[in-house]
């Protein structure tokens, strides 16, 4: 089999996005940003200088990850980042990793508490 020439790529191929900065959203909700270096027909992708962008409410943090190979089945959306525009709205505040971890935990605890409260109240059968 010969190496795919430009004509062998389907119209949806990510060839146009090579060496560009992309946002990859994964099935578990994680958001990775990195430079696309390779891809295939399954949407397996290689991201260089990858970071994970964690967002909790108005806070966000970019955690450096390095070189990532992402298995295609985990990919939801691959978005081209417009370099002209700000990546995030102006009200978002960048914080340290320790702070975002704390915010993440607080959010998780709040969700869990809501879940248990709801469970306990279920016998009331309110709508």
């Amino acid at each position, binding site marked *: 089999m010969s190496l795919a020439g430009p004509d062998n790529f389907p119209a*949806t191929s990510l060839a146009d996005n090579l060496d560009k900065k992309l946002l990859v959203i994964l099935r578990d*909700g994680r958001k990775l940003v990195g430079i696309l270096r390779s891809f295939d*027909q399954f949407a397996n992708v290689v991201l260089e200088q990858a970071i994970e962008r964690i967002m909790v409410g108005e806070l966000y943090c970019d955690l450096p990850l390095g070189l990532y190979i992402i298995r295609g089945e985990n*990919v939801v959306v691959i978005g081209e980042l417009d370099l002209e525009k700000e990546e995030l709205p102006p009200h978002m505040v960048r914080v340290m990793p320790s702070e975002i971890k704390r915010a993440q935990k607080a959010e998780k605890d709040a969700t869990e508490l809501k879940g248990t409260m709801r469970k306990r109240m279920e016998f009331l059968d309110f709508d």
Partner: protein
Amino acid sequence: MLLPGFAMLFFSYFKELVGKEVTVELKNDLAITGILHSVDQYLNIKLENTRVVDEAKYPHMLSVKNCFIRGSVVRYVQLPPDGVDVDILHDATRREARGA
């Protein structure tokens, strides 16, 4: 690669919609509206000039103007009203079913 006729049916159908505005709702409830740029055999979709339906909830999508959506994560594709020709699909489906 050759696909069975039925798989090609919707691929062909979506190819007709290229250039039209569609809204793609994903299994994670994210809904993206944009101009259909291209579609492939897996029903992967590329959208241009995208906007997210609930922008406040997805601030990270603000600067994404073109995107690739993996076919396997799509729940619905909302089509333009004039983009749905049920008769053509109906006929094509019956043709395939007869094995013609």
